[in-house]
């Protein structure tokens, strides 16, 4: 099976490539990238006026399987990923039960092998049952293919345990992903603390609940020399801490999610529960500093924190509704609309944050269109406009904070391991 993708603008930051080229895929590999490939192919795709890029990578996705298949499954979640242009996602371990043992990883990998439409990387919990008490068996977990550890959804409260986990992760060269939140500071909060919590009469989540934990985890990373990745950075102070850590040469990386640069706390003023996530939407100044951090490279990657929830958990009172929003299907377009079209990032730099950067953080050989590499790639139209509608989402859940928004950037095709896993139909 041979596929030629003709005439697209190929953007591959890893290989410093940005020009109109043809791409030849043979079986699961990229065979050739060159101007005017004149080979017979089984399938020819016209990519003129479109971007051809390495398949996108999302380091923060909740696939909910096992345990909450009512919200999302490996099948539905990876279909959403493919539609969003993602060929690799890192599944978070806060399933029910949490992924905290080699057996659970093995069983999860079997499900992935059976159902996944794109590559799913597995992470495991730092502590058993994500309870923050006992560190999981990292050696065995790694042997089952775990690349990263995280108690995402919670922070490891006990600093000693976090330090020990990081020291162990350092020995094994595992990535530690930190959900930074001091629950004693954020306790029962549901929106950004300040004018928004005051105005809405809701409990607030303070910025210090986030950045004080960012500070601690950076300290512990320095002490242990572990590779630390700060998840979902939402506020200015966290950005500053990451910037400082990087200046000091620490092995610290950071991610943010599209809603933290595209929206701000005012979106929650309507009590729309699709604007409820943790960390919460922050002030306008925070969104601005997140955008700046993306431009300056302080924040390395954009990840969705795709967090599906059923309508039952969202169509209720704001303070009782679940935290989190889905994002895989809107992520690229929101980023193009808010960052590229507003001249904060070039398209080239944006693609970096979705490909080579996450690949190097999680240490996988992906995120590039090198000859002989596995053919994971996306073809998209950056100028095409669409409106986010509930009925068009392929995720099992529809808790998007961008419903009704008009955004630019449409994924036309997604190839994963040489297979066309998504083709736009409409």
């Amino acid at each position, binding site marked *: 099976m041979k596929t030629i993708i003709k005439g697209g603008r190929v953007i591959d930051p890893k290989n410093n490539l940005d020009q109109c080229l043809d791409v030849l895929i043979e079986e699961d590999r990229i065979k050739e990238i060159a101007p005017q490939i004149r080979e017979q192919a089984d399938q020819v795709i016209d990519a003129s006026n479109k971007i051809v890029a390495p398949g996108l990578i999302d380091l923060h996705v909740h696939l909910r399987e096992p345990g909450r298949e009512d919200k999302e499954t490996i099948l539905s979640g990876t279909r959403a990923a493919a539609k969003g242009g993602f060929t690799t996602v890192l599944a978070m371990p806060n399933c029910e039960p949490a992924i905290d043992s080699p057996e659970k990883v093995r069983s999860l990998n079997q499900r992935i092998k059976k159902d996944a439409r794109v590559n799913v990387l597995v992470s495991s919990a730092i502590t058993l049952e994500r309870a923050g008490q006992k560190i999981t068996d990292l050696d065995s977990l790694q042997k089952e293919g775990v690349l990263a550890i995280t108690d995402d959804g919670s922070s490891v409260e006990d600093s000693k345990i976090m330090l020990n986990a990081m020291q162990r992760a350092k020995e094994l060269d595992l990535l530690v992903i930190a959900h930074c939140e001091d629950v004693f500071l954020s306790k029962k909060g549901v929106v950004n603390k300040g004018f928004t*919590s005051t105005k809405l009469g809701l409990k607030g989540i303070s910025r210090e609940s986030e950045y004080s934990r960012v500070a601690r985890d950076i300290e512990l990373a320095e002490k242990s020399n572990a590779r630390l990745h700060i998840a979902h950075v939402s506020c200015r102070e966290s950005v500053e801490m990451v910037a400082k850590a990087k200046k000091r040469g620490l092995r610290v990386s950071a991610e943010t999610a599209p809603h933290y640069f595209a929206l701000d706390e005012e979106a929650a003023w309507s009590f729309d529960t699709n604007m409820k996530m943790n960390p919460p939407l922050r002030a306008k100044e925070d969104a601005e500093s997140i955008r700046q951090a993306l431009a300056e490279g302080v924040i390395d990657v954009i990840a969705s924190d795709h967090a599906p929830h059923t309508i039952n958990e969202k169509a209720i009172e704001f303070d009782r509704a679940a935290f989190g929003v889905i994002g895989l299907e809107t992520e690229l377009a929101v980023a193009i609309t808010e960052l590229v079209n507003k001249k904060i990032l070039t398209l080239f730099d944006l693609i970096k944050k979705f490909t080579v950067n996450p690949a190097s953080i999680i240490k996988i050989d992906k995120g590039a269109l090198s000859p002989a590499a596995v053919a994971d790639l996306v073809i998209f139209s950056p100028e095409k406009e669409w409106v986010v509608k509930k009925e068009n989402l392929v995720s099992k859940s529809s808790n998007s904070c961008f419903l009704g928004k008009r955004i630019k950037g449409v994924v036309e095709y997604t190839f994963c391991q040489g297979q066309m896993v998504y083709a736009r139909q409409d």
Partner: protein
Amino acid sequence: MQIFKRKDLLGLEELSKEEIEEILFTAESFKEVSTREIKKVPALRGKTVVNLFYEPSTRTRVSFEVAAKRLSADVINVSIETSSVKKGETLIDTGKNIEALKADIIVIRHGSSGAPAMLARHLKANVVNAGDGWHEHPTQALLDIFTLKEKKGKIKDLKVSIIGDIAHSRVARSNIWGLTKLGAQVKVCAPKMLIPPGIEKMGVKITNDIENALNDADAVNILRMQFERDEKAAFPQELEYFKTFGVTEERLEKAKKDIIIMHPGPINRGIEISSAVADGERSVILEQVTNGIAVRMAVLFLVSQSQEQNHEDHN
């Protein structure tokens, strides 16, 4: 033609100055009805008003009930006990069931901020917020403002101090929105821990000194102190509160002679207010209760007249 064209009354924040003035003007007309021998007009004859109360509240519920009955509406009271642990029918389901009974107006009191807004989005019935969480209690603020205007003849440029647990008070928030829109100068007074962050952006001054709050005020609105809330440890003790923030005759000596004392009730004598002040000449606490009926009649009437169909069903 009415200026107020909304399907629902969810809060004062979203209202314009003109809309608030119209509610107050309409309430003036309705106040007369309660002075008649037959205290009833047929304006809402054949309409059904459901008081859907998720929090116990005798005073607000009774006030709405009297208001609805004086408009000839049929009134059904529904009380639902909730605790965060207990799982039950969702609010939207309950609302739809009540609507299926052909209720025209739903008056809702709920412990969660934003609950009335959510209900309003899902129902065709008119929704009136009778207090949601710490968010808003629009009819209470309207009756406070109505009473103030009746006493002082105007609201613009009046100095009003709101004293008490501002952080956990929907009455404070609604009063702040309403009073500032009408041009009053509002000051909030409480111990530091009870002043919520960013409140100055709502257009108020802040003080932690009761003398400062009383000295140049034309009116004070004293909030009920509740000591049973969950941040108990951080709260001052009752007696200590009375000593530092209680409104007493001695403290009022330096205040303007014609200062007006308001309180949304129920009052805690000897905690936020002394008995002498509560029962004194400057107190309008019982007039507030009387005016509450007129204001709620006006609100029920005005929403019932709206033709607005802003309902969107998400299911």
